[in-house]
């Protein structure tokens, strides 16, 4: 009953958690119990954003893991507040396919280590494991992209998320920019035939 009361007070937070939970769907009570368990287990990690510390990995831990794995060009982009999607996006580059996959595996290993001993392990979802060009690790409020160098230049995620949506309007109007509009010639005068 106590967990049920706890569920009601945390209902909005749990709903947000559930919306962001990319893993398999669990029952409502299972969610409440898992959130209570992780809160009790990590009281010392409540620095800065309480939501990101309660979920899988801290920003500092992620950066440490990425520097251990020697990922190039790690960039942290805070997502603007009106997006409900995530709080931070971390973009890292790998030197080869194998390196990109290694970055993803190192992060998952760190998450597993942190959750060792818990009754139920919640792992972040990993996308793109088969082709090692772009792997996304989605842990709720923190989204980590591990890319190849060429793929990073192709998609250009920093430009999209740092400057907002102003760039998209530009690419859409690019086709219109090249259309040449001729002035309407309503004069009855005959055009000069002589060259």
């Amino acid at each position, binding site marked *: 009953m106590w967990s049920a009361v706890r569920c009601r007070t945390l209902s909005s937070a749990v709903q947000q958690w559930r919306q962001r939970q990319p893993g398999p769907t669990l029952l409502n009570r299972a969610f409440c119990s898992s959130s209570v368990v992780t809160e009790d287990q990590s009281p010392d990690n409540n620095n800065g954003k309480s939501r990101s510390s309660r979920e899988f990995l801290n920003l500092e831990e992620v950066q440490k893991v990425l520097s251990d794995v020697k990922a190039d060009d790690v960039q942290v982009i805070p997502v603007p507040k009106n997006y409900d999607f995530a709080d931070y996006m971390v973009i890292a580059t790998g030197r080869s396919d194998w390196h990109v996959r290694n970055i993803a595996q190192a992060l998952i290993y760190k998450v597993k280590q942190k959750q060792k001993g818990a009754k139920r392990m919640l792992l972040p979802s990993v*996308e793109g494991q088969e082709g090692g060009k772009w792997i996304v690790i989605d842990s709720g409020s923190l989204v980590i992209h591990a890319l190849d160098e060429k793929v990073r230049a192709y998609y250009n995620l920093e430009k999209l998320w740092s400057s907002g949506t102003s760039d998209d309007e530009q690419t859409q109007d690019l086709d219109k920019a090249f259309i040449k509009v001729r002035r309407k010639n309503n004069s009855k005068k005959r055009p000069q035939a002589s060259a």
Partner: protein
Amino acid sequence: MAASSASKLFRAGRSLLGGLKDPNGSIGMSKDLPRSYLFSQQQRTFIQMRTNLKVVDNSGAKRVMCIQALKGKRGARLGDMIVASVKEAQPGGKVKKGQVVYGVVVRAAMQRGRSDGSEIKFDDNAVVLVNKQGEPIGTRVFGPVPHELRKKKHVKILSLAEHIA
């Protein structure tokens, strides 16, 4: 920003005609609702073979026609992957007309229920072209995209989107 997207999205509560799925058979049953109300509510259905969809990324294609819905017996819904054939393409794009491509449905006219009981539906059917591994071919996605893609493991498309519904 939201005004630039042409499609509107509606969030409805629990639908009034929740139990009555086909409007043709239910005309006799509901006497309290006026007939015009039933006729004005169009029953939207799944995305299946021969469905035309709009392409909302900058991969070069404009319209595709669905050939196969990869999941679901009755058709594809919001967030599912389909196989499609490019019917109309921009001249200098990455895909050509007549090419067979995979796509992820990002907007569907059929409503989709959310976990909190609300439903979401859009004005049009739109798709983002991907390759077989699920990586988008284009680099930007236009218009609103719903949260459902996150659950379906399409976070890459969400991260390229300009507006998340």
